[in-house]
């Protein structure tokens, strides 16, 4: 499986989509390589589990390939793919059995920035921060799907309100309302340590 780069010239996404639509798997492979990390982290933010994020993001690409005829080559590929990722993740989270299993088996999915870790050399401080991270993860897990999604896109993917609104196809006011609701819930859950 070779790269779709031709002598240093990056192939446009539009061209890759058109080639993928005609059945070119290598072109689709290049689309996968370009968007795999973003799709994985989107799923990780929604599910909070490495294994599930990997599985669901890969499944999203499989479904994207099967539905490739419906992609509009004139529009960016990722927002279209994201709709599949979030749908798969929401369906997964709504399944009570998998949710129970996920909660039992889930490991940490957040990490402290390297600069913060380096600054906290005191072992008791490190333990304290690890507990705070674990409580933050648990509090995020208790949010509704919609609140969690907006929070993750803002806090951990660093998108602007406008970008979140476009991605989710909702008004900016709704983005801010969901974000407020999510943050208020988190602040309440972590009240004693904030």
């Amino acid at each position, binding site marked *: *499986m070779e790269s779709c780069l031709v002598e240093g010239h990056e192939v446009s996404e539009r061209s890759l989509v058109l080639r993928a639509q005609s059945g070119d*798997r290598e072109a689709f*492979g290049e689309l*996968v*390589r370009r968007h*795999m*990390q973003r799709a*994985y*982290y989107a799923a*990780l*933010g929604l599910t909070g589990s*490495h294994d599930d994020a*990997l599985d669901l993001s*890969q*499944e999203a*690409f*499989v*479904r*994207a*390939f*099967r*539905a490739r005829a*419906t992609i509009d080559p004139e529009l960016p590929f990722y927002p279209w793919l994201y*709709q*599949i990722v*979030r*749908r*798969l993740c*929401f369906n997964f989270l709504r399944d009570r059995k998998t949710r129970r299993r996920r909660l039992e088996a889930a490991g*940490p*999915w*957040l*990490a*402290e*920035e390297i600069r*913060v870790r380096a600054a906290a050399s005191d072992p008791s401080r490190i333990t304290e921060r690890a507990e*705070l*991270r674990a409580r*933050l993860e648990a509090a995020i897990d208790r949010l509704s799907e919609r609140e969690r999604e907006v929070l993750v896109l*803002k*806090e*951990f993917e660093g998108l*602007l*309100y406008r970008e979140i609104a476009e991605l989710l196809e909702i008004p900016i*006011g709704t983005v*801010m*309302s969901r*974000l*407020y609701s999510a*943050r*208020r819930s*988190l*602040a309440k859950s*972590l*009240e004693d340590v*904030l």
Partner: protein
Amino acid sequence: MIEAGGGEERIRQLMMSLLDGELNASEREELERLMAADPALEKEWGALVRLKEVTGTMSFRKPPDQIWEVYWTSVYSRLERGIGWILLSLGAMVLISYGAWKGVQELVADAGMPWFLKGAILATVVGLVVLLVSVLREKLFRRGRERYKDVDR
């Protein structure tokens, strides 16, 4: 820019925008005035700022680099398996249908079997084939042509 208007909703939107650095100068002044006049609002703002400081130090835990090296291969394998399942299903459908047809032919040719038993076996076999074809048709064709099946409504 946040739409003009009053009420709690606007205050919440102003707080979010200020927290995320998406507020202009005049809106910032407006929010600061509101907070100065309302201690409860100021307290809530303090909690949100502290929360932002915590979330600001967190990021996604990075998976091992090796997963990116085999990521596309895994997706490709899943695509191949999908084709494998379709071929297996089609092949099984043909074989089962053929086997059922031959079995029915033999049953009909058996002069010693009562007619109602022949009829019952025939009905069972035809029913199974109809159900099998119906389920496969739904799985393979109808879902494949549903344009918005992966879009959240």
